[in-house]
């Protein structure tokens, strides 16, 4: 597959692995990735096994489904019970446990909840069923948020009154700053490639000014990730931290101006609650007043009981890199992909799902 297979080359991977081992770093270092797709790629391709023992790759809060707190799901479930309502969602939200139920369970009980690949599919459902309220669950970072923003603009311009979004979108750079002020030692960041396609390398310059931290923006194939790790370790070794782009075929300094423009037209910045971290100021996106008609939180102000987390669930600590999945007492011990207790196990991109499916490495 063009622009994909060329980056899955064992000669290149072996060479990069050797080069990383040759970089002089005489102490243990921790490099954090903040993208669920990186978590999965690293696990799938067994990349941790190609790194020297003093380099530890840790997962941060890069899975948007995992960092969405229970009350969003509880709210979505409450809305699904309103008559003539259709919930449309990306697939991995279906099995995430809320305080007492999940979308999958509610679907089995008779609620109209449909998995879609794109907001464009949800718009088609809204057009085909003007008698139903179609509510799209907006979860995702800057890669996905423009597609939801675009759907709101399309609905608005068509007068598609029955389409609305329950918005829980979050943005990455404020979370990176919060992590740098947190407890976990982070020597470098593997930055998310497709978020960066949208927001551009420029979005991290403020972080670089405030914290001297080695960074490289990486794509998702083995050569992409190993190449970025080579850059990060070299920056650390030379004490020359920088924001580097190792994914130049898809990431520019300014990002995608059309996607950024639609984000700005439809959303405004707000505070957001991240599972495991708590409130991060300015880390969320809220639908602007102009589009209130398409804001499901305003259209359907349901009252829900106070959300509860399973007290044994350690997803919060896993999402901040404090512990690895096998240090959670529930991992493989009640919590499995077939029977997930926490979001990290159920999401396609959760740390625990990756660890469970691809085995333990680099412990």
């Amino acid at each position, binding site marked *: 597959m063009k622009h994909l297979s060329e980056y899955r080359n064992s000669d290149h991977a072996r060479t990069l692995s050797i080069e990383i081992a040759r970089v002089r770093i005489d102490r243990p270092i921790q490099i954090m990735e903040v993208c669920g797709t990186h978590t999965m790629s690293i696990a799938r391709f067994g990349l941790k096994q190609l790194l020297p023992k003093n380099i530890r790759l840790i997962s941060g809060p890069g899975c948007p489904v995992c960092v969405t707190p229970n009350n969003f799901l509880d709210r979505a479930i409450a809305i699904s019970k309103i008559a003539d309502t259709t919930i449309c969602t990306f697939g*991995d939200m279906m099995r995430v446990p809320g305080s007492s139920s999940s979308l999958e369970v509610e679907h089995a009980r008779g609620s109209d909840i449909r998995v879609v690949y794109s*907001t464009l599919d949800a718009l088609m459902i809204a057009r085909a069923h003007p008698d139903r309220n179609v509510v799209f669950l907006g979860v995702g970072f800057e890669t996905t948020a423009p597609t939801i923003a675009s759907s709101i603009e399309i609905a608005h311009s068509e007068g598609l009154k029955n389409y609305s979004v329950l918005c829980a979108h979050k943005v990455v750079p404020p979370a990176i700053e919060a992590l740098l002020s947190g407890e976990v030692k982070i020597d470098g960041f593997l930055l998310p490639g497709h978020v960066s396609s949208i927001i551009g390398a420029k979005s991290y310059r403020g972080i670089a000014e405030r914290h001297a931290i080695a960074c490289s923006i990486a794509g998702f194939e083995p050569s992409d990730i190993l190449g970025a790790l080579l850059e990060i370790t070299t920056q650390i070794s030379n004490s020359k931290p920088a924001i580097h782009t190792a994914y130049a075929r898809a990431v520019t300094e300014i990002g995608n101006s059309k996607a950024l423009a639609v984000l700005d037209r439809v959303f405004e910045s707000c505070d957001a609650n991240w599972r495991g971290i708590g409130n991060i100021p300015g880390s969320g996106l809220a639908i602007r007043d102009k589009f209130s008609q398409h804001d499901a939180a305003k259209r359907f102000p349901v009252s829900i009981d106070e959300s509860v987390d399973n007290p044994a669930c350690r997803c919060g600590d896993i999402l901040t890199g404090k512990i690895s999945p096998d240090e959670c007492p529930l991992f493989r011990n009640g919590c499995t992909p077939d029977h997930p207790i926490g979001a990290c196990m159920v999401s396609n991109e959760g740390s625990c799902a990756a660890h469970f499916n691809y085995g333990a490495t680099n412990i």
Partner: protein
Amino acid sequence: MCLAIPMQIEAIDGEMGTVEATGIKREVSLSFIDDPSVGDYVLIHAGFAIQKIDEHQANETIELLNQMAQRAREMKS
């Protein structure tokens, strides 16, 4: 959810396009792409093209990787 697949534009119809990879075709929105052309490769995510792939940069990256691997082979022999 950063999953995006590189696919090639086969046809354009207003803001929508038909993209193809390994024989699979999809209708996607090209509304985020500046001056899309048939033949361009774009990254597809949730039914939208989110970025055009810069062929020049891609070639440079592959060339660099090939050179590194070549040097490593020479050093071994």
